[in-house]
């Protein structure tokens, strides 16, 4: 049984590996909700203004509503780097399934096909489609070849505990180094018993157990990070 993960790794033609994390129905519901709230607020304010124009205002308002409902997401997705305001709020982004940024055509397709996803009246088709596809794609996404993904969170320099640096005995792979650094960064938030238990796993490398092993391991992290 393959372990289940939220990360899908794809390789670009340039040989770069991209880690995409498709976003499911729950978070997308709220992005849609925020977008709709914004659109209807704008429409409401516009209605106050246009009310003075009488029947002409009503006509203009209907045109505005049409544009807002159909082209607001397209415009913001293409001009905002794949993010409508609601998606920006919830940390989502629309991209092509191969990792490229989304263009006008695909965005238009995926948003016009909301008609299909909205069937039979309350997004049931869209929800079922999301649940049936491994990458959480609704019909519009499948047609346009797009994905909605969680954005990468920004990376900060780690804050490491102050201990004496300890040089490494063996060379480590990049992943192993980052695991040790991540341990050192998170160790203050682990209970001390758990931190020592984790450090004990690496006692073949640190050559010590308990709090001594923990200190050595933190020192190795310090060494990996470099600096004084």
């Amino acid at each position, binding site marked *: 049984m393959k372990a*289940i993960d*939220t990360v899908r790794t794809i390789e670009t033609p340039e040989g770069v590996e991209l880690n995409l994390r498709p976003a499911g*129905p729950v978070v997308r519901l709220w992005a849609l909700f925020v977008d709709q709230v914004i659109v209807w607020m704008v429409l409401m304010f516009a209605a106050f203004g246009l009310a003075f124009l009488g029947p002409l205002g009503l006509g203009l308002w209907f045109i505005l509503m049409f544009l807002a409902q159909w082209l607001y997401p397209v415009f913001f997705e293409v001009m905002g780097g794949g993010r409508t305001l609601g998606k920006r709020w919830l940390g989502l982004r629309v991209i092509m399934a191969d990792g490229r940024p989304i263009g006008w055509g695909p965005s238009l397709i995926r948003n016009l096909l909301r008609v299909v996803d909205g069937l039979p009246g309350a997004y049931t088709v869209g929800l079922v489609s999301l649940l049936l596809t491994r990458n959480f794609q609704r019909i519009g996404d499948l047609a346009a070849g797009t994905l909605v993904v969680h954005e990468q969170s920004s990376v900060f320099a780690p804050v490491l505990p102050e201990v004496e640096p300890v040089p490494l005995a063996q060379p480590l792979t990049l*992943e192993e180094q980052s695991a040790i650094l991540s341990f050192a960064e998170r160790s203050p*938030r682990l209970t001390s018993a758990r931190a020592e238990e984790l450090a004990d796993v690496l006692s*073949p490398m640190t050559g010590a157990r308990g709090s001594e092993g923990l200190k050595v391991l933190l020192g190795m992290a310090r060494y990996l990070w470099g600096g004084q």
Partner: protein
Amino acid sequence: MKPGMLGFVPRTRTAMESVDLGLSLLQVHWREVAGVWGLQVLVLLGLVLPFFARAPLWSLLIIWWLKPWLDRGVLFVLSRVVFGQSASLWDFLGDWRGVHRTGLVAGLLWRRFSPMRSYVLPVAQLEGLRGGAYHTRARTLTRQGGGAAFLLTCSGWVFTILTFIGFLALVQGMMPPGSRVQVWGRFQSMTLGYQWFLLASGIVALTLTEPLFVAGGFGLYLNRRTHLEGWDLELAFRRLAARLVLFVILLLSMPSLRAQQPQPAPADEPSAKVEVEEQAPTYPPEGPLRPLEEAGLRAQRLLKEDPSFKHTEEVRVLTYEPSGREPKWLRRLLDALFAKKEPIQPSETKSSDFLKVFWDIIALIGKILLVGGILAFVLWLVYRFRHRLGLPMAVEASWEAPPAVAGLDIRLESLPPDVPAAARILFVQGEARSALALLYRAALAELVHRKGMEIPISATEGDCLRAAGEHLEAGPASTFQALTRTWQRLAYKDEVPSREGFETLCEAWPVAFGGRS
């Protein structure tokens, strides 16, 4: 927890991403969930319908209220598959008591109103906590991810209602135009048939959306525990430790491997032979023969039986046959060197033989202890009186200069007497990298050992530069800076300095660092 058995990849995810982890779990294991869910719904209907046959809408309301019980079935399945256990209907029935032991009543009464129901359900059901312990634990968990859990609960409501409406709309849409069936607008005067229809739609909507809500909550729970307990770190560490241990084992077994290596023999043949020997006794398990294995077996038989694959090896060994004319001592020597070992006859075991072997072993152990003891005593004597022998004593120092910084050897012994001259020679030979490396590490060595600059073993070039800036006057400091920059450009950008630039550095070097010449 055994990370090797985990059915998911632990990472530190954001809350919303971990909800999606739960949904992915559900996507993969929906069959098991559907089985348990179907059983539970049937049980509920069987219990409720006899009392409310005249008012099916009431049974829908009751089933909706009893959702926390249905949730337990979903969570049971997901929690089992996550730790690599099977989760069939029989497992569910077999673990019936475990599933319902803690918190069921509370869950159906006051905790029914909790806005983070699915997030904290594992605390009661999986961890088996109750009372104060439950509340403490639930508070620890909801300190982070509580907001997401609340959004998840709201999503549950929204999805259920939307799906319910969608299902009604679907049925209405399927009706031919002009049909007298009206799905909407009949809520004032509901016939019995219409109530049954609503009950069915409600169960469909719940079936579609409730497992989603539970799975999302379980994803949040798993993620929070990963954050709190470092499951991802444990996994990475175990992998690393296994690799290190394997490395040590390989290292230890290397000599013995070499000793067992066969004499140079025809290529390919030994490996094929080994395979034949290893594979021959194994036959596929009972059941139909699989074509691939059959082909493999046939190939092995061919290798073993066909004469054209036969491999004979001629080994010549020098042996010694006594002729009886040689002197006695020579004979004894040759016997000891070349005499064929007589295979030990499995003679009848006599008690005297046993005793003899036993005494031999005791004698051997005694010899080892004696010789080892004498050796240890001599070594101890040497160590104890090492100062009289002129050996170095361990120096108690508050700060010990590291032997190397950033992979560069900075011990004074490793340097040539005239550093710039040696560097010039290297540069002329076209080894600009070695030349600059020598200049740089020699400068570092001088700073550390002569000028008393203290740098840790983990220092980077930037750290050294900063430390040197505090330690030197302006002139030498700028020389060191120029040297560092040139070295970095060469080391990391592969940018070879010009002849003039290098010459300037070489000339400035003795002035700045007081090289010994």
